[in-house]
């Protein structure tokens, strides 16, 4: 597709960094398709896109972590495809990852010494390292925490500053930040932005990956929006409203499958009232979330990742105690937020990461079919598993959900689609009153995606109240009877079809109505 060029100012400077026709494929997924893009010195350039839009892949190519299948990267007009992050750093491209790469038990000076051009000789000279660190901070113009503190003693914002210093240690002219604000408090975000403006004033190029529209408007000089591996266009954020950005991000989504059979909705099964929860850092992640789901209804919760989806799933699965609010199933309130109690209350789940939370990969398929307290109780007597009952149950579940695998093979040997079929079959075979599914088709091929969708609709058809938490908007619109949007921990009111895409985009962008 031809990118919509919409530059605000005429090009006065030659681009510092150019990406020309870059493509990259992982297995069956085209992560980047013929991407062309340019970045100038002295600008803060935001790259905006949904999960899976390809922005991280592109940045990993710039930073020498991946190599493109086709296309070229030009730095100052010279070809610059790097074989390693180290080579990219030497050429002046530094990247700060979302997950920090600091050694927590070492001091600030020691951490920086690891990245600085090597000191001569064998000995580590603490005084020299501290001086080098201070010199670097001064050169870059950033405050530095006392060099003798260990990283473990520093708050997240200060650690990020050290990461930025590390990235700039080799006189970097290009600084790539991968969702730098995701881990920061609002105060720390303000400090980061001051720092970035300072670096911009030194004519450095700052590439800023985000999916937060507000930040784009606040800090970026230009924004490139990506969708499904392609560049939609590069824009001046001042001339683009947040809802326009959201629309570009999401694209023109048309529900792929119009609802043919309207299911009769039953009584209220799941009632969530003013539910709140905190994340690992103790910051509010869910704020007064309320919704009801009726039997035979699929309630879709859309939104950009990192807006409380994980926390909502974990509360409903019993992995995270809520900090406030109530959940009730068929009128009886949940008092004990543990996985076991929620399973017993009739809430089944499909976790977002099947390999991490859904399966024990070295165990056999049959053993994985039993991985649930309620099923273990059902297939055992006086603490001993009944081999026959377990076999009968697993074989029936495998047949019903088309799991094509030897029951005695380790789950590890199954394809992703078959693994997810096991997880789905196990959840639904328990006939839950409520099913909470988080990104159930992430990473699946078309056939498996369709099988998962059919299974969800089928369970709704049998009276189950389905909560579908997904960052895949197509999936949400395709399957849901009602849709709400989770944004910055708050849930919008439910939208009934036909769903107004523009309104949905505004909600996803966190624009108050």
């Amino acid at each position, binding site marked *: 597709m031809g990118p919509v060029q919409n530059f605000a100012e005429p090009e006065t400077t030659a681009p510092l960094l150019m990406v020309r026709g870059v493509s990259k494929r*992982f297995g069956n*997924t085209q*992560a980047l398709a013929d991407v062309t893009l340019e970045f100038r010195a002295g600008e803060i350039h935001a790259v905006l896109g949904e*999960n*899976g*839009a*390809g*922005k*991280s*892949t592109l940045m990993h190519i710039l930073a020498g*972590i991946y190599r493109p299948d086709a296309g070229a990267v030009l730095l100052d007009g010279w070809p610059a495809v790097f074989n390693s992050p180290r080579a990219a750093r030497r050429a002046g491209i530094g990247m700060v990852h979302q997950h920090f790469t600091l050694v927590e038990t070492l001091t600030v000076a020691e951490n920086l010494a690891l990245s600085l051009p090597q000191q001569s000789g064998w000995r580590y000279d603490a005084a020299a390292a501290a001086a080098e660190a201070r010199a670097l901070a001064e050169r870059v113009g950033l405050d530095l925490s006392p060099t003798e503190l260990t990283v473990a003693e520093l708050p997240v914002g200060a650690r990020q500053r050290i990461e930025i210093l590390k990235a700039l240690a080799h006189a970097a002219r290009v600084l790539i930040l991968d969702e730098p604000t995701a881990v920061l408090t609002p105060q720390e975000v303000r400090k980061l932005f001051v720092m970035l403006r300072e670096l911009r004033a030194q004519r450095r190029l700052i590439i800023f990956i985000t999916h937060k529209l507000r930040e784009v408007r606040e800090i970026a000089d230009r924004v490139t929006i990506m969708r499904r591996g392609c560049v939609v266009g590069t824009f001046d954020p001042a001339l683009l409203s947040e809802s326009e950005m959201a629309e570009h991000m999401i694209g023109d989504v048309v529900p792929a499958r119009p609802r043919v059979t309207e299911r009769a909705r039953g009584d209220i099964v799941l009632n969530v009232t003013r539910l709140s929860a905190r994340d690992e850092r103790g910051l509010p992640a869910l704020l007064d979330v309320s919704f009801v789901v009726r039997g035979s209804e699929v309630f879709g919760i859309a939104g950009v990742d990192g807006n409380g989806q994980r926390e909502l799933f974990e509360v409903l*699965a*019993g*992995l995270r105690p809520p900090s406030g609010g109530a959940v009730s199933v068929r009128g009886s309130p949940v008092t004990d937020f*543990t*996985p*076991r109690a929620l*399973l*017993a209350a009739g809430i089944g*789940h499909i*976790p977002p990461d099947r390999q*991490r*939370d*859904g*399966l*024990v*990969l*070295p*165990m056999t398929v049959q*053993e994985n079919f*039993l*991985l*649930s*307290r*309620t099923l*273990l109780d059902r297939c*055992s007597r006086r*603490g*001993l*598993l009944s*081999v026959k009952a377990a076999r009968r149950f697993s074989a029936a579940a495998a047949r019903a959900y088309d799991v094509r695998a030897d029951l*005695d093979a380790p789950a590890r040997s199954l394809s992703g689609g078959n693994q997810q079929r096991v997880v789905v079959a196990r959840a639904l075979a328990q006939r839950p009153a409520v099913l909470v599914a988080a990104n159930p088709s992430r990473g699946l091929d078309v056939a498996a995606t369709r099988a998962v969708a059919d299974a969800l609709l089928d369970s709704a058809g049998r009276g189950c109240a389905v909560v579908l938490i997904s960052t895949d908007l197509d999936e949400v619109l395709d399957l849901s009877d009602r849709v709400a949007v989770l944004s910055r921990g708050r849930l919008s009111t439910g939208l009934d079809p036909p769903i107004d895409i523009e309104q949905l985009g505004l909600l996803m962008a966190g624009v108050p109505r």
Partner: protein
Amino acid sequence: MQALAARFGPSVLALAGALAVSALIVALAGRDPAVAFGALWYGAFGSADSLSEVAVKTCPLLLCGLAIAISFQAGVWNIGVEGQLLMGALAMAALGTHALPLPAGLTLGAYLIAAAAAGAVWAGIAGVLKLRRNVNEVISTIMLNFVALGLIGYLVQGPLMEAGGRYPQTDAILPALWMPRLVLGHRAHAGLPLALLIAGAMHVLLYRGVAGYEMRAAGLNPAAARLAGIGVDGRLLLSLLVSGALAGLAGGIEVSAVTHRLYEHFSPGWGFTAIAVGLLGRLSPAGVVVAAVFFGALDAGSNAMQRAAGVSSVLVSIIQAVVILSLVALERGRWLPGRTATVVRED
């Protein structure tokens, strides 16, 4: 069959490697490996008496190997089997000088249970530290070994020293509490059949029991087990307690059946050899039985080899060490604590 080969293939490879390395060392030392291994074999299986010795050496290795198997399967790295065994031996030695108003058989049974409980308590310390204070059990169980060793050193030279006061050892336990022998005139005792029964019970627990299933799931993927409603912490603690109990029982049986008293350096390192036994047996009870007999035979045959072929019995330690190293290398660290995976994620 294929699954069996996949499971035990590395064990066979490790064994072959260990035997090859030790043969090479024997040859380098200027002896004939064939003669040395022949003597080793004869020393283990050549006569009724040597077979009986194999049984004696196998018993503690089997129980301790099972202790390793159950804790490792649950993902708990109990390196403290040695200390737990010593605490079991201490319980038997301390109690065994006193009679109970019961038939001798029942008294012995009660004292063996007490020995198992002592081992479980010792392991439980590490378990509580892990769950309450997040103390890595590898560190705490290793340290508790030294505490047990020091405690016994103090007791046998102080409060529990024998009445005559000549040697740093406890009084002999009452002869009525000696574990019955299997065949008159041979040292093989009823501990081995008991250990084999326990191995069978462990097999049922691990592969048929709900508790065993939950332990294995918790060990292989705690996150998934937790989401499935399994009480992961409770299962970890249970596996550690059972592990400690098996080790304590091994110590109790050894005092009751073989030494009849406790002294410093009571154990030649059974708790550590047991790690090799457990790994070689691939942490399955049936595999542990085979591995324990193998190591028991090595142990029993090594003295004969030293006498007949002039090859130091230290060779057996080399075989054990190479077995552990090869297994760990073949598994690429799968059985090591804190295994990590590097995953590059898309977006």
